[in-house]
Structure formats: C-alpha cells, structure tokens
C-alpha cells in the first residue's frame, strides 16, 4: 500500500474505527463506554474506499448506500476541534444521524477546479467556524432539501408533505419511508433549491451539543499520518539550514566534505539563504548537515541584539507618530494639566509558536506535475506557493492537506512550501520530505513580535479616570506578512482589543480623553501571527495598567472597571461572570492566596478571567482560574471548554517562560531546554463559564489567551505588591524583599 493510499484513507479509517467502536459499545450503557476496536488495517480500508465511487449530494455532503454521511471540511484541523464543529453544523441542517457522520478534507486544487465551491480554506483569526457557519449550514440545508425532493419525486408526492428524522425520510399520509442512503444518488440530479431558511440555534439538536470529536481514535494508537509521518517508495529526506541571521545570505558550502557520508544523496542550494542536505533518512541527513562547512554572509544585522532592539523600541515610546488607533477628547492636553499622572512602561518579548510538530512538507516534482503532502493553515496560498516554486501552472499542482500536530499561526505563511518545492525540483521524480530540526524551527520562526508600551493615566481626586494615553512602540506583523493590508500610517492589526468599536476587537472602556497610538519599529527578526496575535500584548498592557490606576485611585479593581464599562455591557457581563465565579465579592480566598482580574474583546468574542495565586519562597503558584466567554453561539461546549482551558496553557507558558532573545543578529533559544513551556505540574484548575448571548458569532481559539497573563499578573501584584511589567516572569525575582 502506498502512503498516498494511507493518507487518502484517513477519513475512511476514522469511519471504520468509529463504527467498530460503536458496534463494540452497542450493548453497553453509552456509546462512549467500554470496548472499542481500533482501525482495520489501512490496506483493507483503502480497498474499500476505492470501490465506493459514490456521487456527492452537493459539495458539502456525500451519503453512501450504507447511510454513512461524509461531511467535507475545507478548513484546517490542527487540534482546535473546528473539524467536528463544522461537521455538526452541516449535520444539524441535514437532519442526519450524527453517529453516521464521518469527514473528508478538501484539497485546494479541487476547490479551484470547482470555482471555489468550498470558499475560503484559510484557517486563522479564530475564523474556522464563525467565518463559514452560514454557508456550511446552508450546504447541509440544501442537501437535505435535495434528498427530500428526490424521495418525494419517487413517491409522486409534494416534498412539503415529507419529514426527516436522523436521515430517514417519511411521507406520513401514505406511510412510506426511505433513507438518505437510498435516495442520495437521485438527489445528486436535483436542482439545488434557493431561499432556504436556516434553523434557529435554539432548535439545534446536534450543533450546540458536547459531542465527541470525529477525529480522535487514530490519534490514540499512532495510526494518524501527520506530515512528519509521510513515507513513499523511493522517498528521500531533506533537512535545510537557513542563515541564522534573518535576511542574511548563504555564501558557500563545501558539499564534498559530506558527499561520501552514508546515505547522503545531494547537498543543495535551496535559495539565497538556505542549504539542504538530502539523504535517505533524517538522522543521516542531520549528521551530514551538522558536519557541512557553511559560510554565511550575515548581512547588516549581524550585531543586532535584544538590547539594541529594546533601545530602538524605547525611542518609539516618545517619538512623533501619526498612527492613531483610538482617539476620544484630548488626552495629551488633560494629562499635561492633570494634578496626578500615573505612568508605566511595559514590554513583551519575541516568542516562538513551538508547535509539537515542526515544519515539514513532502513534495514530488516532475516537469508535468507537482504535489505536496503536508500541513498548512492556508491550503490555497500553499497551492499558489507550490505552483510558483515548481514553475508550473496551478492546474498542474495539488496540495494534499493533512491534519496538523499543532500550529498556532505558524503555518499561515508558506515559505516552507516554497522551500520544499525548490528542493524537490532539484530531484525530479523523487518524493522528498523536507523536515526541519527543532533547532531550525526555533531559530527560523515567525515570531510573536516584540513591542513596548508607555501608559499614562490621569486620575482625579474622586478616583475617576480622566485621561489615558497608551503609546505602543514595536514591530508590525503585517508589514512583513501581508503588506497589502497596511494603511498609509501603519498596521491596523496592532490595535487589536483597543479599537473604538466594531464587532471584532473593541475596547471595553469609556474614557473621556483617550489616545492610543503606535510607533512602528521593525527589527529584522521575522514576525508572524502567533495565536492571539497583538491582542496578547495589548491586553497585558491595558489590563495591568487599569489595575495600576485602580490602585492609584484606591478603588477595588472590579469596581474601578465597572465604572468605565457601563457602555460596554457584553464586556462587563463576562467580567462579572468571572468575578462571581471566583467569589470576588462573596468569598475570601484561602490564606496566602490572592486574586486578579482581566477582560478583553477579541476575535469577535468577549472574554474575562479571574485568577488565584500565591507566592512562596519566590515561586509563583497559580491555583485556580475562572474563565468566562461570550462567543455568541457555542457549537460544541466540550470543545470550547478544551480550547479555553488550553488557552491558559498557551498564554501562561508565554507569560512564565516565553522569550526568544537575540544575540549577534540570531535567535538564541534553540530548543525546549532553553525555551521552556508549562507542563502538567504547573497547570492550574480552570473553570470555564460560557455565556453565549446570541446574535453574533465570535471565535474561541484565541481570545482567552489574552486574559491569561494579565489576570495572573494582577493577582501576583495583589500577592506581592510587585508590578511585573516586562515579560517573561522567569526573569523576575519574586522573593519578597
């Protein structure tokens, strides 16, 4: 069996394993209790799949004669669970039997050939569900109508007299019934109706339910083929190394020094800054690369360090700038004449996404065709990058999307697709799996950008916040990643969570005189969209400083916020929910334990967190977090819970340890021994409260990360009297002096 068959049979394998699972559990109390069987051998699955050329009902829905419902998923699954949520939305409108639902991943070349019938495949900005819920639900509703129409035509009755339950169509008056599987082939020929009405979410029975993920079982026995696991007959492995100083060049390398090492096939120039060793195995390629003499031209940034970058940003804290994100009244004038001004500078370091699965892509190039197998969050952009690097028409290329071992924004760029294609093009006809080492992944990342912030606030004698000026100085992600969305003055994304209004990233406070502006300072380190993007830094700055202002005003941090939030009821509602959950006004924390709060709006959702921490012998212990989220609608409560709990791991890892320093122009931290992350021993209890208020669709994968750090930092202040304004915390001495 070829790897291609194994990859293509992934969804089928999930189906069979699930069926086996359900059969095994049939006699037990619940579908997910004892006894499930793991997937059949993949060979049998592939053969069965090959024998089933079933026509789709429409682009979103395929129903097989055995009643299996295959829902097509166009967005990337990288652990966030949207695959299951999207299938729930389709199944809800389809009125099928959820236990029969399986999935299939859409290929971008196929999407293009069909005039983008699956629309946008990019998966970022917490948009997988909220960005496609309407048309995927309509896809399910349309398929339902076509299936019913097919049955009605066979019976010669009006479709309106037919009803559906769990994939069984019934004509009550004549007592006839049939199944989706029986009429699916006929439904394919029915003209899709228009003007259908989607269900009111309050009537949902599949969506909104805490169903299990569709894609779990092959993750538990090692059978899921991630990009890293692909193998094909004759395949070679390539390990690249790029100039450690971003933007530097590859001057020369001495291939002859490693050419005779075992397994080495090629030593290649990939592009202006990258060399790669191609060998028969990873270890042999890595061994050769480690001994390959390479000369770099480090370019103009060879002397840049974290200190020079900090100085560059510090200058931006007071520089003139025209780039304003939010202006109310005249904050500068009020601050200039205010009796009392509170001022503080904050700073946030570079951080690496560090997903567990490192960058990889497998490409086979021939003069006629180029294909890639591997992970991407932007399947269509990956296809374009592949075709460009292959120097072939897009129609001659395809990207075989696989499920990803974590990504967090790292695979929103396609430079590694280009790289893999350039390598494969030099080895025509041979599939080449390009794998990065963890070290390469750490130093050639697309980093959560470095920023600093100076905040100045005027508090009057009655404790009212009269004016706030928030100056952010730092790196723009979009200037590097997507220059097309830059405005004349700067990068609008830098104001995430601070915008005057809108449905996406609005500030939750009304302040009579407010100025939030940005001085763009772009070091040479390449930035990227890191789960939560600029919301993370901005929430630390604003939410910690609001606490500082409350302290200056001698007002409780919750009461201080309430006064500013009267015009922001949705922001306030989640803050109140988190505060109530932790007992802010009702219970005292245990002896030695202290509390902190934070709230923010981001990615269309309103989130808040309350934390309980203690500090003993200079060590912070995070005991408990209560998180509240209003995402409008909840498609799968148990997956939303998993995303929110997981967001604290990601956000608190960043707060505790996340720091990529720069020395001699290079990123210093090369692995988890120097780039530590939170592990199970530090994991606090996370209590998740969801308060979906309806009427809008917010994202869930990212926003909560932004409140993790400020809630804990505010609690840390309550515990120690120490304001931590420079992250990460590992650099701060918490011993009480």
């Amino acid at each position, binding site marked *: 069996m070829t790897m291609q068959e194994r990859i293509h049979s992934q969804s089928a394998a999930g189906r069979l394993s699930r069926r086996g699972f359900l059969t095994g559990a049939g006699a037990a109390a619940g579908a997910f209790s004892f006894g499930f069987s793991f997937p059949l051998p993949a060979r049998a699955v592939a053969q069965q799949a090959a024998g089933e050329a079933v026509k789709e009902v429409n682009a979103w829905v395929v129903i097989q004669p055995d009643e299996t419902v295959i829902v097509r998923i166009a967005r990337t699954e990288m652990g966030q669970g949207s695959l299951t949520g999207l299938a729930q939305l389709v199944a809800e409108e389809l009125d099928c039997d959820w236990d029969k639902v399986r999935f299939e991943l859409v290929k971008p070349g196929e999407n293009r050939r069909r005039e983008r019938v699956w629309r946008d495949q990019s998966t970022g900005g917490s948009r997988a569900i909220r960005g496609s819920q309407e048309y995927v639900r309509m896809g399910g509703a349309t398929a339902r109508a076509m299936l019913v129409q097919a049955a009605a035509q066979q019976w010669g009755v009006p479709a309106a007299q037919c009803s559906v339950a769990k994939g069984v169509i019934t004509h009550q008056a004549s007592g006839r019934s049939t199944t989706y599987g029986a009429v699916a082939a006929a439904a394919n020929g029915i003209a899709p109706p228009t003007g259908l009405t989607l269900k009111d979410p309050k009537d949902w029975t599949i969506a909104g339910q805490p169903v299990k993920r569709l894609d779990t079982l092959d993750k538990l026995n090692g059978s899921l083929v991630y990009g890293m696991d692909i193998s094909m007959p004759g395949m070679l492995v390539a390990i690249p190394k790029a100039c450690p100083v971003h933007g530097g060049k590859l001057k020369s390398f001495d291939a002859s020094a490693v050419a005779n090492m075992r397994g080495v096939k090629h030593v290649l120039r990939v592009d202006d800054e990258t060399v790669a060793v191609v060998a028969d195995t990873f270890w042999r390629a890595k061994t050769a690369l480690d001994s390959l003499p390479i000369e770099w031209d480090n370019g103009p940034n060879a002397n840049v360090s974290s200190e020079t970058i900090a100085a560059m940003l510090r200058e931006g804290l007071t520089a003139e700038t025209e780039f304003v994100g939010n202006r109310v009244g005249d904050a500068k004038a009020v601050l200039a004449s205010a009796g009392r001004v509170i001022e503080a500078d904050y700073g946030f370091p570079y951080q690496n996404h560090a997903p567990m*699965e490192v960058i990889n892509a497998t490409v086979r190039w021939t003069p006629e065709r180029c294909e890639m197998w591997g992970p991407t969050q932007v399947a269509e952009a990956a296809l374009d990058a592949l075709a460009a690097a292959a120097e072939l028409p897009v129609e001659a290329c395809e990207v075989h999307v696989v499920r990803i071992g974590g990504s967090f924004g790292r695979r929103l760029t396609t430079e590694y697709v280009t790289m893999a294609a350039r390598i494969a093009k030099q080895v025509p006809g041979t599939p080449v799996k390009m794998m990065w080492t963890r070290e390469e992944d750490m130093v050639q990342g697309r980093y959560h950008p470095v920023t600093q912030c100076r905040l100045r606030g005027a508090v009057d004698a009655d404790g009212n916040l009269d004016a706030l000026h928030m100056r952010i100085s730092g790196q723009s992600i979009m200037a590097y990643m997507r220059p097309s969305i830059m405005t004349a003055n700067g990068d609008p994304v830098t104001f995430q969570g601070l915008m005057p209004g809108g449905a996406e990233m609005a500030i939750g406070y009304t302040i009579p005189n407010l100025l939030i502006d940005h001085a763009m300072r772009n070091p040479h380190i390449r930035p990227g969209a890191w789960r939560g993007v600029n919301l993370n830094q901005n929430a630390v700055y604003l939410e910690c400083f609001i606490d500082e202002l409350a302290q200056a005003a001698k007002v409780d941090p919750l009461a201080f916020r309430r006064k500013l939030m009267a015009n922001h009821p949705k922001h306030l509602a989640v803050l109140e929910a988190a505060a109530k959950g932790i007992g802010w006004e009702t219970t005292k924390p245990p002896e030695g334990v202290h509390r902190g709060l934070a709230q923010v709006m981001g990615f269309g959702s309103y989130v808040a967190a309350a934390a309980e921490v203690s500090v003993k012998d200079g060590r912070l212990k995070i005991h408990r977090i209560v998180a509240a989220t209003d995402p409008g609608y909840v498609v799968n409560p148990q997956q939303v819970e998993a995303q929110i709990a*997981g967001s604290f*791991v990601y956000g608190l890892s960043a707060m505790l340890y996340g720091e990529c320093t720069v020395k001699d122009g290079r990123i210093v931290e090369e692995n988890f021994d120097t780039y530590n992350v939170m592990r199970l021993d530090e994991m606090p209890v996370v209590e998740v409260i969801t308060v979906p208020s309806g009427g809008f669709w917010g994202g869930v994968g990212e926003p909560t990360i932004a409140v993790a750090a400020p809630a804990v930092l505010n609690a840390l202040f309550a515990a120690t009297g120490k304001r931590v304004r420079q992250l990460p915390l590992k650099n701060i001495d918490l011993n009480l002096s």
Partner: protein
Amino acid sequence: MTKLNVNGKVVEVDVEDDTPLLWVIREHVGLTGTKYGCGVAQCGACTVHLDGVATRSCALPVSAVTEENRIVTIEGLGAETPHPVQQAWAELDVAQCGYCQVGMIMAASSLLAQNPNPSDDDIRAEITNICRCGTYPRVLAGVKLAAERMTNRG
C-alpha cells in the same frame, strides 16, 4: 546489523551506532506512531516502553539497546485490545492535535504499571511531557479514570 525486539518481534536494522532509537523505530522499523518533538529528551513525544519503563527514545543511541531489551511502541501497546489509558483518552476526548498524545499515553501507561493508584500530585510530578495545545487537565483526568478502571478490573 543491529537486532531489536520491537513489540514482541525481533527486527534487524542496518544503522549507525549513534542513531537515536526514535529514528530507528520511525525510519527503519517503519512505525511512525512514536513522534519527533525536540531530539533532546525534553518533550516526551518520543516516549516508548523499554522493558516496561517509559523512555525518551530521541536521545537514546540504538547502541545502548540490545535484543534482550523489550521495546514497546504505541503500535504495540493496544494491539490486542486498547489499553485502559487509550480507552480513557477516547472517553474524555483528551487529544487536541494529538501529536504529543502517543507519548502521553506511553508515559501514563508506564506510570500506572508502577503506581496503580497515583495521586494528583504523583501524576503531575511524573507526567512531564509537553503538550502545546494544553490538554493537561484532561490528561490528569484520563490517568485517574484509567487507574480507576484498572483497579476495578482487579
């Protein structure tokens, strides 16, 4: 040639002595369930059982292992019937991206073999694998559920 006992079968591989066991398992034996995460024994994605003990295979040269050592990978753990840890993981929907979970499952099953009734603190101290998605709360719950099931089965 090096002889290894992997999942109860003796296999022969032609590899350099310094090749980490992880890459021998993945590329020469052809079992890709065991993952590469860091290569420096930090993250635990590469965890296998070596004579029943959870072992990080990415930093262990193959020369340190002989045919006498029993290596069990994720493919061998639940080959007959799923291990109680795998069952608990399915019940609680522990995995997110899943990439680290095979290592988690190998670490958890080894822990339970040595300590059938671990406390929360035992689990927190013993399971040091990295998960970037943040499945830790369900990992903790999963180990406890598996422990309960294994104890009840006697």
